[in-house]
């Protein structure tokens, strides 16, 4: 094991970049992501990472283009942002994913209607073709950022990964964090090598990305999307492998990487939560069990790919599921709720209740999750849930 240090979430993120030996980072400061950029600039200024380039760039859209471009050339790259900054990145994010460029980005959640956290920023980017992981605490930030490079760069995946964590409550909250030994990480994460070299003198040079070629060719327009979708779906296997390896190597476990179950054995119903509120949900679960109410928790760690296989198995063991969404798509509803219903439709018939709360930083207390658990138990008994959304 390495050293313990008390640090805020944003520092854990920067330390993870250092452990992963990131070569190029570009970012634009935005609350609550700001201090990551400061920590990265400090690392660059300290000279402790020779060759590390930190670009103080003019906005989030350029930041995304810079890291995408740097990774295509062969440098492991990192960027980070929050809320409106993520929305500004929207256009080139599509290109990073379509170009199968394996960068990692921290998304420090800030809602789109206020500066306070919810998941509306990252949820608004669902169609961009990235993998979306959500984490709960500072240790999990550090571990997941490092693991995300291994997942992203795996040749079965080759997709960018966004690691989401709640602003303020996590980005600016100090917790003890274990920093693994660099030597262990170096063994876990080998240097990045792009699939085709862009160097003119490299015999393996594929010339990088070719533009314009292929337009008007007789080809199936679906093909690129088919490949992209199957890579994103298939990432489930790689995520599970990488988390298992991390557990073996470092001794820390986050469920199977896709979901983390808490006291689900023998539970009558389960609740789901993502991000920091999963901590409050776990505390509620303990209280509920104490009162003889058998409510388990499923922390959703990967939203994309959606843990369909895990939920199919979980749903068979319980009588109802209470989904807690920390964002809502107006006119549609909670994204996790809908993803889960779609997953279970025609597969497992249990009432699924769609709770929505914690928007724009609204505090979600342990008592709120106790109510979510109790309501879910009632829905199990009634074999029917209230109409979605159920506001918390």
């Amino acid at each position: 094991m390495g050293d313990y240090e008390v640090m805020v979430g944003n520092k854990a993120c920067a330390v993870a970049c250092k452990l992963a030996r990131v070569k190029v980072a570009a970012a634009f400061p935005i609350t609550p992501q700001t201090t990551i950029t400061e920590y990265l600039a400090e690392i660059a200024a300290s000279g402790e990472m020779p060759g590390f380039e930190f670009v103080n760039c003019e906005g989030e859209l350029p930041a995304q283009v810079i890291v995408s471009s740097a990774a295509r050339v062969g440098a492991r790259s990192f960027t980070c942002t929050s809320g409106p900054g993520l929305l500004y990145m929207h256009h080139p994010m599509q290109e990073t994913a379509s170009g199968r460029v394996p960068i990692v980005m921290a998304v420090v959640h800030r809602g789109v209607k206020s500066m306070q956290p919810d998941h509306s920023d990252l949820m608004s980017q669902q169609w961009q073709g990235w993998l979306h992981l959500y984490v709960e605490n500072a240790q999990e930030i550090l571990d997941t950022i490092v693991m995300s490079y291994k997942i992203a760069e795996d040749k079965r995946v080759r997709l960018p990964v966004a690691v989401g964590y709640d602003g303020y409550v996590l980005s600016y909250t100090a917790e003890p964090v274990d920093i693994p030994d660099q030597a262990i990480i170096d063994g876990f994460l080998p240097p990045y090598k792009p699939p085709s070299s862009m160097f003119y003198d490299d015999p393996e040079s594929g010339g990088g990305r070719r533009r314009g070629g292929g337009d008007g060719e007789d080809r199936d327009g679906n093909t690129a999307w088919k490949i992209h979708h199957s890579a994103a779906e298939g990432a489930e296997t790689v995520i599970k492998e990488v988390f298992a390896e991390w557990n073996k190597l470092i001794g820390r476990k986050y469920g199977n990487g896709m979901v983390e179950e808490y006291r689900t054995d023998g539970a009558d119903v389960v609740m789901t939560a993502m991000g920091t509120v999963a901590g409050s949900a776990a505390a509620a679960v303990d209280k509920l069990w104490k009162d003889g109410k058998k409510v388990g928790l499923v922390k959703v760690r990967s939203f994309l790919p959606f843990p369909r296989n895990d939920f199919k198995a979980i749903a068979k063991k319980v009588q109802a599921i209470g989904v807690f969404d920390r964002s809502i798509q107006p006119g549609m509803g909670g994204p996790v709720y809908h993803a889960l219903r779609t997953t279970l439709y025609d597969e497992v018939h249990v009432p699924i209740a769609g709770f929505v709360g914690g928007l724009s930083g609204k505090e979600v207390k342990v008592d709120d999750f106790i109510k979510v658990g109790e309501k879910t138990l009632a829905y199990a008994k009634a074999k029917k849930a209230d109409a979605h959304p159920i506001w918390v």
Partner: protein
Amino acid sequence: MSKPIPRPQVPMEERVITPGSTCQGCGAAMAARLTFKVIGPNIIRHGVPCCPDQTSMTPSTGSVFEGGGPCLTGTSRALKALGRTDIKAVAFFGDGGTYDIGLGGIMAAAQRNENVFVITKDNEAYMNTGGQHSGGSPKYAETATDPVGPASRGNPSNKFQAALAFAALGVPYLATASVAFPEDLMAKVKYAKDIIGFRMLLIATPCPVGWRFDPAKTIEVARAGVQSGLWPLYEIENGTTFKLNYKPKELKPITEYLKPQARFRHMTETEINEIQVATTKRWEKFLKADEANQVLL
């Protein structure tokens, strides 16, 4: 400052793949051929959406339309981080990707003095999509989005003077060139390539389709642009040192440039005179700057 390459020293080898998919008489295709002849193999070419000119036999990459500057930045920083500064990040963008949708990113890259070389083929509108207005469009030019009508005299705004705007940032090298002056153009490419820091070369590349002239006359139109003072050939180093590369004893009237192009045919004598006066005045300023070896704004 650059030194013109004498014709016998121009490399015989071609480094673009022909035939390309350009229109007849495409000025940008000529610019690509001349540029890649002399630039050498050790580059990564960058593109943003623009007319397909000529595919060069170099590794290439690209980005979103507005992403030219950051895309070059990313490549350049990665090359530095990987210890491959012998490879150059070179852009071959259009005027829209440089002066219009891409301006912010390229200006920011210039302001950071990124080690990149921006080559712009300026055909003064979005020719790839049918000739819509860009920041590179000259005043009174009729474009697809500056139609001439009872309430419009074509493009109401002045052409973006990119070289002078970028000179204010004090970047190491800026120059203009024209496909009608190939020795000068190639010399500037060769000279700028190995400078460290931000370099920019703006090449006048007439577009017979968008400017509406006979495709056989591309070089004549480009030459008239230079000889009338509308597209002066000059270099600026470190934002201060100025050199005019082509100084005719007397400027030709701008009508020699305007008349063959149908995009200007609606211009009245008063309007032509307005542009003539502005051009002459600007030329005098350039002559003074050349004499003083200094940028005068």
